[in-house]
C-alpha cells in the first residue's frame, strides 16, 4: 500500500521591532522577539503567502509540487507559532519559501522572520517540541519577572541543550526518519 508521506514543520514567527505605540526600551527582549501575531492572519493567508513565495522562487513546477499537501495544522496568533504540513518530497521548497518571507502575509504586514524549528514525520513529535519550547520560554519569562535579566536570545534559540543552537532545525530533519509514522494523523 502506498502511503502519502508528509513532513510537519514547526515554525515560529519572530519580530524584531515593537508594535506601534510602545516604547522599545520598556519591552524586555524576550517579549520583543515573541510578540503575538495579528489576528488578521488566517491559515488561508499564510498558505497564500507561502504559495506565492514558492511560485516566485521555484516557478510553476515548485508551486505545483507543493500544492497538494500544503496545510496549516495549527496556528496560534497569541504565541506566533504554527504547524505546517507539506509532502515529504517537497518540504524543502516550503521551508525555503518561509526563509525568504520577510513580512506577515496580510495587508500591511509587519516585518518578521519565519523560523522553522522542527521538521518531523509525525505531528506528535512536533507538538512535543512546541511544548518543550513553550516551557523554556515560560521559565525564562519567570526569571524575567523575578527581576533577573534572562537570556532572551538563548531562550529563543536554544535547542535540546546549550550546545545546539542555530543548527537545530537542520539537524532534526534527519531524525524525522525514525519517527513513529503510525502516530501521524492525516
Amino acid at each position, binding site marked *: 500500500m502506498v502511503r502519502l508521506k508528509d513532513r510537519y514543520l514547526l515554525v515560529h514567527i519572530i519580530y524584531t521591532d*515593537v*508594535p506601534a*505605540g*510602545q516604547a522599545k526600551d520598556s*519591552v*524586555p527582549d*524576550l*517579549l*520583543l522577539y*515573541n*510578540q*503575538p*501575531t*495579528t*489576528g488578521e492572519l488566517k491559515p488561508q493567508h499564510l498558505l497564500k503567502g507561502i504559495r506565492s513565495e514558492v511560485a516566485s522562487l521555484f516557478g510553476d513546477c515548485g508551486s505545483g509540487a507543493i500544492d497538494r499537501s500544503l496545510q496549516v*495544522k*495549527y*496556528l*496560534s*496568533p*497569541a*504565541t506566533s*507559532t504554527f*504547524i505546517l504540513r507539506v509532502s515529504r518530497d517537497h518540504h524543502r521548497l516550503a521551508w525555503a519559501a518561509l526563509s525568504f518571507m520577510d513580512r506577515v502575509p496580510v495587508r500591511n504586514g509587519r516585518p518578521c522572520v519565519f523560523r522553522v524549528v522542527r521538521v518531523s514525520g509525525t505531528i*506528535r513529535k512536533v*507538538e*512535543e517540541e*512546541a*511544548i518543550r519550547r*513553550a*516551557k523554556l*520560554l*515560560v521559565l525564562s*519569562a*519567570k526569571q*524575567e*519577572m523575578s527581576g533577573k535579566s534572562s537570556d532572551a536570545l538563548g531562550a529563543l534559540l536554544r535547542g535540546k541543550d546549550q550546545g545546539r543552537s542555530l543548527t537545530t532545525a537542520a539537524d532534526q530533519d534527519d531524525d524525522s526518519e525514525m519517527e513513529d509514522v503510525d*502516530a501521524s*494523523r492525516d
Partner: protein
Amino acid sequence: MDRRKSFPAGKAPDAKRKEPPPAANNSKNQAHDTRPNSHALKRVKFNDARNIRSQPPDAALEDGRLDLQKFLSAREYEIKALETSMRKCKASNATRVFQQVPRAMRRRTASHNVKRVPKRLRERAKREQIGDNTPTVEARKRRPRTTRARIRAETAKKLDILAARKRKRRLEKPAVGGAMVKGKEGDAKPTVQSRAPRPKIRRNTLNEPPKIKSKFRKRQLNKTWLPTHLWHAKRATMAEPSKPIWRFAIPITSTEKCYRPTHRASGQKGAVAWDMSYMSTIGLYGSSLGVERVLRALGLTQEGLWAARGQKWRGGSRKWSGLLSKDRKESRRIIGPATIIWNPEPAAETAQELGDPKRSQRELLIRTHPSCFLELFNELLKLVKMQSPQLHIEDLRFEIGSIELTGPGSTEALLGILKPYDDKPGAEYQADIFESLAGVTNPASLPKDAFLAFSARDPRLAYPPKQVNVPDRTTDPALLETLTKWPVEKNLAPFGLFSRDTRHRASQLPSQKSINRRKGSSLPGKEVLVTAADPPIPVILLASRSSTAVQAQGTWTLMAPWKCILPIWYSLMHYPLSTGGNPRLGGLDEQRQIAFEQNVPWFPGDFPGTDAGLSWELDQQIKRKRDWDRRPKGKRVEWKSLDLGAGRKGEIGDGLACDFEHLFGLPKNNISGLNNTQNPAISDDPNAMELDHLDKPQGAQASEDSPNPMAVIKQMTKASFGALVASPTNEKAPNSSIVTVTLTFTGRGVASPCARIYRLPPQKSPMPVLPSTQAEVPATEPPPSTIFGLPPSDLREQWLGKLPAKSTSSLGGKGRQAKKQTSAPPRMPPGADLKTRKRLLAASLLTAEPQFPKSSTNQTDVGRHPLCPGEEELIGFVTAGAFSLSEGKGTAIGSLSAEKVLETVRETGAREGHLCVVRNAGETVGWLARWEVV
C-alpha cells in the same frame, strides 16, 4: 450438543456462544440506518481530536501592549492545548480492541469474534464490530457447506436425540430401582468397601500404557499421550499424529514465537518447563552384589563408584548420570544417557545385614531416554537373567512421570508449588532442606549429582500458587552451608517413589470437584487443610548440571507418579515468578536449543553412533528429503552442479544427510530411497547404482544387529578418546568410530546441520610451482599453483592465514605472508610519494592477475577466500549448528571420525590439529573452526 439441553432453564445457554453484533448482522436495514450515523459520529470525533485550540492575539496583549504576565499565560495555554490534543489524538487512534491484548494472547479470530477478546474489552469490541461492519458468522447458524459437514451435522442431531433419550431413561431408572434395592436388602448386607485396582506391573516384561478414556482411545492407538497432552495440544505444535516421536505425542515447540524468550528464560530471567513424562524409568531389584555386576556390565566400571567414593551414591544420597553401554564383540557400544538412583535401605535392617551384601536387597531406578529404552531394557533383561540369585526389573514407564525445569526462576517455582506434606518442620528432613533452598537461582549451584526425595502435598490445595518470599540469600551463611555440606544422609529412609503402594495411593488424588467444594466451604483466603483423603505425593527432585561451564544453568528434574504430573503442571504454569511472568512451556525444539546454547550434545540427535541416534538421523534424512522435494526445482540446491572450486563438481556424499556411510566407505543404504539421484560422487551412472545394490547384502552381513550399514559406526566417549590421544604408543582408534565435538568458529561463519567438516590439508612438499611473477598466463589455462581437480598446494597456509591475528603470531607469520603474495597485490599506502607509487603501480601491473578476462571462477579461491580442502580431508559432519545466542557467534556440534582426527592431532599437534574447516552442505565457502571433544 447434549450439554446445551442440559442447561437449567434459568441459565442462558448462549453465554458460551458467539454473539454477533446485532446491527451489523441480523438486520440489514438496521445496519444501513446506523452506519452513516456512526461514520458521521466518528468523523466528528476525529476532527475534534485533531483540532488544536489556539488563542487570538489579544490574549497575549494587555490593552494592546506587550506584557510579561499575559505572555506567560498565553504560553501556558498553548502547552495545555497541545497536551490535550496529543492525549485526545491518542485516545481516538485507530486501534482496535484486540490490539490492546498482550501479544501472546492475541488471536486472529478475535477480530471477528467478540468472545475471543477478554471480557473487559468485549463491549468495546462489539461496538467496534458494529461500527465497521465486520462480517461475523454464528457457528450455530452456519449452514453446512460440504457433504461431509452435512452428514456430520445430521449425525450430531441424531446423537443428540439418542443421548436425550438415554438421559431420560437414566433419570427414571434409579428412582425405581433404588427404591427396590433399599426395600429388599438395604440394611441386611454390609456394603463392601473395594479399593481401586492397583495397576499391574509384571516383572521382566514391558509395561502397558495406562488405560485410556474411551473417548481418547482411538487417538492413541500407536502412541501414548503425555499426562498434560490436552494442555499442550492447545499451546504447542505437537508431533504429527501419524508420526509420533518415540511412540509419544510430544510437544515440538510452542505455537508462540519463542526462540529468544526461551534463551532469556533459560539463562537470565524466568524459567522454562517441560513435561518430560516420556522419559522412561526402569526399576532394578535384587541383591546388591548382583546389582553391582549388572551395572558394571552396563559400563559403570569406574572403580570410584564401587569403592568408598561411591558410598553416597550407593547409599541413596547422590545420583549417577552418564552414558550406559553394552558389550558387543570385544568393543562396547553406547546405549544412551541414564540417571541411576539407589533406594536407601531401611534403617532397622542396615544394622542387621550390614556385613552381608549378598543378602541385602536393593532397589534402583534407572531413568533413560525413550529412544534407547527398548535397547536398554533388553540388555538389562539379558544381564538380569544371567545373575544368580536372579534379579528382576520392572518397566515403570507409565508409573513415573517427570517435569524438567531450567532457568533462574526454576527453584523458586518449585518452592512455590511443592509444599511438604507434613507442615511441621522435622517431619521429613529432606523436605526441610528443600524449603531452605529459597534464594537459589541456579540448580547447578547445588552439589554435583544432588537430589532430594520427599512427599509433597497436592498442589491443587494451594491453587492458585502464591509467590514465595525469595530473600536475596546469595551470601546467607546458612544457605551456603546447606549447599556445601548437603546434609541429606540424616534420617535417610526409603523413598516413597520406589514403593508401588505409595505411588498408587498418590494417583488416587481427590477429584477437582471435591477440592472445589472444600475450598468453597473454607473461609476466603484460608488455605484448605490437608485431610486423610489427600494422599502424599512422593517426589524426587534431581538437580543436574548440564555442562562443564561453571555459569551454565542447571536443570531440575521433578519425578512424581504419572497421575500427579497434571495437577503439578497446572500449578507450575500458573506460578507467578518474582521476576515477572510465569514459567514458559518448552518443547523438543527448546530442549535442543538450550542444549545447543550450553554446548552440550543432545541425545539422540548428536549421538549418531548410537542406535537411537542413528534412527533419529535417518528420520531427519527423510524429513530433509521431503522438504527438499517439495521445493521448486529452481529454488533448491542442485547437488550435482555444486562447484567446490579447483574443478571439483558436486556435493560430497548425500547433501541431505550426515553421510557417515560415505565418510567410512560403507555400502549405501537405499531403504529410505534417499540416495538415488543426488549422489554424483558415487552413483553417476546407472551401472554404478546396480553395483551398489549388489553390494548391499554384504554390507548388511557386516552388521548383524540392524540392516542399516550405518549401525557399525560406534560412538566413542571423551574419556576413551582422551586415553587414545595421550597413549604413547601409536594405538589406532577402532574402525569407523566417531567422537562428538563442539565446534566454535574462529571468525565468521554459521553452520547448519549436515555441514561438512574438513581437517586442514597436510603440508605439501612444494611442487614445481612457477614463480608468481609469471602469473599472467591466459585464463584458459589453469593457474600455476593448481592442478586440475586439486586445490592449490598452499591451501594450508591460506587457511592458517585466516586465523585471527592474536593466535597467528605464534603460529608463524609465514602463512600470512604467503597468503598476501598469492591473493592481492599490496595496497597503495596512504601518503606515499610519487616514486613509490610508480614502483607499486609497475609491480602491480606486472604481478597481478589481469582483472579481465577473469580466470574461471573458484579455480584458486572463492572470492579471495581459500578453497575447501579435498574430499580426502573430510573428517565428519555437523549434527546441530546455528548462531548461538549465548556465544554471540556461530557454534555447532558435530561428529568426527576418531581415526582421522587422531591421525591429525598426532601429526600436527594439539594446536593446529584442532582446527577444521566447516562447509555447509550445498555451499562452496568453508569457514575455519576449532573443535573440542565433549
